[in-house]
């Protein structure tokens, strides 16, 4: 596992315009500068946001990597949910899914609770 290397590449893409330009022009060369497993490399190239989440990439890095690939917010959240279905629980990092009811249902419940009080 080389979660650190995956996260470092995404960190550099997020903060450095030149790395983004290079990634667009010569992606393989940029990827070769990081010690990645085949699975990590595949997840980055596709990009498979769900798998990157399951591999343990921090959402504060991953959401910008998704935005870089023009993946809209709801599609980003859904990709992570699908990642959990397809690849199983998060393998590393700080995350554990908690069976959250979803933003819309949660919002509606909070509103109902406020009306009761």
């Amino acid at each position, binding site marked *: 596992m080389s979660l650190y290397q995956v*996260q470092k590449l995404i960190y550099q893409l*997020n*903060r450095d315009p030149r790395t983004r330009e290079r990634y667009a022009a010569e992606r393989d060369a940029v990827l070769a500068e990081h010690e990645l497993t085949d699975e990590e490399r595949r997840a980055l190239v596709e990009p498979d946001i769900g798998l990157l989440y399951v591999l343990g990439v921090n*959402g504060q890095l991953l959401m910008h990597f998704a935005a870089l690939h023009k993946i809209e917010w709801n599609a980003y959240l859904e990709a992570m949910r699908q990642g959990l279905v397809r690849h199983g629980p998060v393998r590393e990092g700080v995350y554990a899914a908690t069976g*959250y009811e979803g933003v819309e249902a949660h919002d509606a419940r909070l509103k109902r609770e406020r009306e009761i009080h």
Partner: protein
Amino acid sequence: MPLVYCGACSHAPGITARAERADTQARQALESAFRRMGDDIRATRPDALIVVAAEHFANFFMNNMPAFAMGMADSYEGPIEDEAFLRIERRRVPGNKALSRKLIEGVMQTVDVAYAEEWKFDHGISVPLHFLTPGYDLPIVPANINCQGPPLTPLKRAWAFGEALRAAADAVPERLALVATGGISHWPATPDSGKINEAWDREFLARWAANDRAALTSYSDAEIYRDGGQGGFEIRTFIAAAAAAKGAKGTIEFCEPIPIFAVSCTIARMQIAA
């Protein structure tokens, strides 16, 4: 001279990035509260604003992660995020290198703070500034506490950092305001984004308003993660602000859970004697 303003606010990127997806009334109330906070800060006639943030891998990464850092430059750039995503235009934000240096030298007397002569603001600073200083006319002194990459800065050290910031601020002739930014409970950028533990947030804010050091610093990281998610680790910035208030009590001026913004959106102020 003594700190002239001390407060805390939310910085969630959704506040600007997903503005129209929130309940209109709730969003407008939050934005009004933000603008009032900006007015309150300006009313204290500060020469600079210290922003104690919990950045998200814009500058600091697990290759060299400081427990505390402060910016020491005459200008900063931000936001680092995609402008279309965050809906805040990237710009240069004024700093004050000489003032930063004096403050850092003061803080270093008791807390080993890293300093940075370059610093890219992320939403942790850019979202609050968008509302608080929309003219970008107030020099910023950015400060950071590691709330992202474990092992995290211990809560008691976050308190010590707040005390050190206050002592340093009181020792310079400039009028300084301080705002801490962060979420309370939240699960940002994960499949659980939007989940909010409102009861836990209100309990934390009650401890903050009471400026109860023992209660504020009694949480373990395991408890925070269980009840407040990984975003809850950002309570460190609020704790630093409480310490900087030097015993003053606080007022929660706005607190409303807005799930599409992923946090209990909060505006709070310590009633320090300016």
